[in-house]
């Protein structure tokens, strides 16, 4: 079996196995192509929802919106995540990838499935949105494409697990797997649960679309679909947080403050994050209060707790590493002297802050049973998930790409100055985009809606002027974010096409085992007030104050509504 070779990257010291390297490249590349398609579709969505432009026709808009959601949330992210999984197993553990042929089969299934699905959408008969709630039906190939994609992704997860077994058996490392790999394992475990849920509900729906099954219950569909739809976002969270730890290690040589805390937080995700998918059903009939509260409060808050821990430990680890280098003045010298011109770092840091302050806090609002009533299905919801999935996941993956271009793709990055600015342009316009959508949602504006002016409706409702203003800002900030995305695509694709080829590094038929980390010195010897990372702690307290204030403002707003019981 040892016909493969291992390449040691001269720039990073990372070791890439030949087959795994090509699999990572292929998956990451196809992911970026989906990002390009989804980004082009975003132009249509944004310019139509901007009331002053109202660009696309209604049927085109709903079609484009369906495709934008699926291409971005599912295809772009999961292709890229498969590349990350292979990286975290094969590259970090320095072993060959298990069953490369099956991994290519997984890739082919995902590729075919995603194309089949998109063809069905662009034929126009499947404008059912990403959620495709029954009894609204799409073309059979819409579901078939998703099922093929899901089977491919599931196989990829098992190739990842197989690779872990290979590493263990061939003793490429000692002791526990690295934290980043540990995070990737949690992502893969969540993925197995997620994809199985998707199969459980999409297979009968597909059979219904071809007439073999008579009915799929709408509420059962919603319940099981969200075990897929929301949990798939938990794969993203686990994956992008793993990348945060990775980048902290790469950019600063930072080590986790406490392996115990970080890993326990990942374990909390496995145990509780999926249950949080219940929050999509808080405004639904037929589910008991107890069920809603237990799932979204009792269980979801353990997942929230886990995110709050990661949100502290990652900047905390960076701070400790910076203080060890001598940036010890005051609370924030470590942050001021951080490599802000390195897009891998700046992208991740902008992502951490935005994910916590915008995505995290708004997510908890939506997940609160009563507060959900003032948010459900308003444009607040896409505001929230653009803060989590775009600022959180997509921006993190973009930042990682800047690292991977020389290391994995062996190309010198073109336009380094543009790359330096890209995380700021994309990240901050996405912050603003998410915020104004939340603002419009607070005023009640609906999501997935072609015409807020209700032209032609007999009983049209007139939204307040502020809602129009917010939606205009959605248009402006959305275009700015699209420009930031275009910068990324130009740099990435341009580097692969025209970037100077870099030295491959030495190729060996054997792997070099992974060394152990140096024993941890007591981190407590740095910092002040007996705190290893006082600056991070202050930031965490600012976050907490914002969280508490916004949380109670929403309760205050809720208390002015009609009595409901």
């Amino acid at each position, binding site marked *: 079996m040892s016909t493969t070779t291992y390449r040691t990257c001269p720039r990073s010291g990372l070791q890439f196995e030949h087959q795994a390297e090509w699999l990572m490249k292929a998956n990451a590349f196809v992911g970026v192509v989906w990002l390009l398609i989804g980004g082009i579709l975003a132009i249509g969505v944004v310019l139509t929802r901007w009331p002053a432009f109202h660009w696309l026709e209604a049927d085109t808009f709903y079609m484009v919106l369906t495709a934008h959601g699926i291409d971005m949330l599912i295809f772009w992210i999961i292709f890229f995540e498969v590349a990350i999984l292979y990286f975290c197993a094969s590259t970090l553990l320095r072993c060959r990838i298990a069953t490369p042929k099956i991994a290519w089969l997984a890739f082919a299934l995902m590729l075919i499935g995603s194309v089949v699905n998109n063809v069905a959408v662009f034929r126009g008969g499947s404008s059912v949105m990403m959620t495709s709630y029954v009894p609204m039906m799409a073309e059979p190939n819409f579901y078939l494409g998703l099922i093929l994609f899901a089977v491919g992704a599931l196989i990829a997860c098992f190739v990842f697990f197989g690779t872990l077994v290979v590493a263990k058996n061939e003793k490429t490392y000692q002791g526990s797997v690295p934290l980043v790999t540990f995070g990737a394992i949690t992502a893969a475990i969540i993925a197995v649960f997620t994809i199985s849920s998707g199969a459980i509900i999409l297979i009968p729906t597909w059979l219904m679309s071809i007439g073999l099954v008579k009915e799929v*219950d709408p509420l059962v569909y*919603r319940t099981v679909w969200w075990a897929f739809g929301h949990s798939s976002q938990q794969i993203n969270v686990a994956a992008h947080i793993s990348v945060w730890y990775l980048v*902290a290690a790469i950019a600063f*040589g930072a080590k986790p403050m406490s392996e115990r805390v970080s890993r326990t937080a990942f374990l909390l995700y496995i145990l509780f994050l999926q249950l949080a998918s219940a929050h999509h059903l808080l405004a639904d009939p037929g589910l008991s209060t107890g069920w*809603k509260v237990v799932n979204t409060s009792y269980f979801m808050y353990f997942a929230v707790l886990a995110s709050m821990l990661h949100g502290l430990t990652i900047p905390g680890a960076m701070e400790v590493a910076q203080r060890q280098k001598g940036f010890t003045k005051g609370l924030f010298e470590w942050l001021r002297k951080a490599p802000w011109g390195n897009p891998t770092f700046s992208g991740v840091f902008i992502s951490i802050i935005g994910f916590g302050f915008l995505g995290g806090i708004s997510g908890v609002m939506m997940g*609160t049973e*009563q507060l959900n009533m003032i948010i459900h299905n308003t444009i607040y919801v896409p505001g929230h998930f653009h803060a989590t999935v775009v600022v959180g996941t997509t921006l993190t993956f973009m930042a990682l790409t800047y690292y991977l271009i020389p290391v994995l793709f062996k190309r010198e990055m073109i336009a380094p100055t543009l790359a330096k600015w890209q995380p700021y342009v994309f990240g901050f316009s996405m912050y603003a985009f998410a915020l104004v959508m939340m603002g419009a949602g607070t005023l009640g504006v609906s999501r997935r809606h072609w015409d807020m002016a209700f032209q032609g409706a007999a009983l*049209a409702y007139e939204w307040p002027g502020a809602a129009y203003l917010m939606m205009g800002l959605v248009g402006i900030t959305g275009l700015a974010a699209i420009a930031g995305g275009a910068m990324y695509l130009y740099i990435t694709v341009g580097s692969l096409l025209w970037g100077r080829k870099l030295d491959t590094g030495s190729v060996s038929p054997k792997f070099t085992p992974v060394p152990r980390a140096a*024993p941890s010195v*007591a981190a407590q010897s740095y910092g002040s007030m007996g705190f290893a990372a006082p600056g991070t702690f202050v930031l965490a307290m600012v976050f907490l104050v914002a969280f508490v204030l916004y949380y109670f403002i929403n309760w205050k707003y809720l208390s002015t509504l009609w009595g409901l019981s």
Partner: protein
Amino acid sequence: MSAILPPSERLWIKHPIDRVEGAWIVIALLWCLIMFAMMVGWHIWGNQNLSTETYRTTPEQFSEKTQAMVDKYTVRTETDEQIPVVAPPPGSDVYLLARLWAFWPILELEKGKTYRLHLTAMDYNHGFSLQPANINIQMVPGFEHVVTVTPNQSGTYSIVCNEFCGIGHHQMVGRLYVK
């Protein structure tokens, strides 16, 4: 670079926790408990809780009940389509159906009075989004959701469908009056 290397301690579970993390865990956990208490407490002391009273229904059954209410309590009709405006007595059962692409009928309620509002979707999923109050409830076909409502402000309200339901979705707006 230890996040990408195996930890030096064989058992990561024994890795020490420093004070920053320890303090933050305690604070974050307390905050989670407060949020948990809010959600449960609002059911006891708060006035805005979504009812979970639900029955299975069919479009025929629900139309029949809605029609009976319309026949009994219609006070006038509005628009070219002659949509009935229905003013049922306080405390009674009130029916609102959502279908492609309208809410039916128009309800007229009294401020400060309580009604049992029955909601269902006749075909696809629809969204009950009461504006400008901004109360949003999912309407799922096959399920009759009984929500007890007490309007606290008089005026003209709109009910906007905020669940995508096909090509006429953006024209699906209903009305509701509170006297």
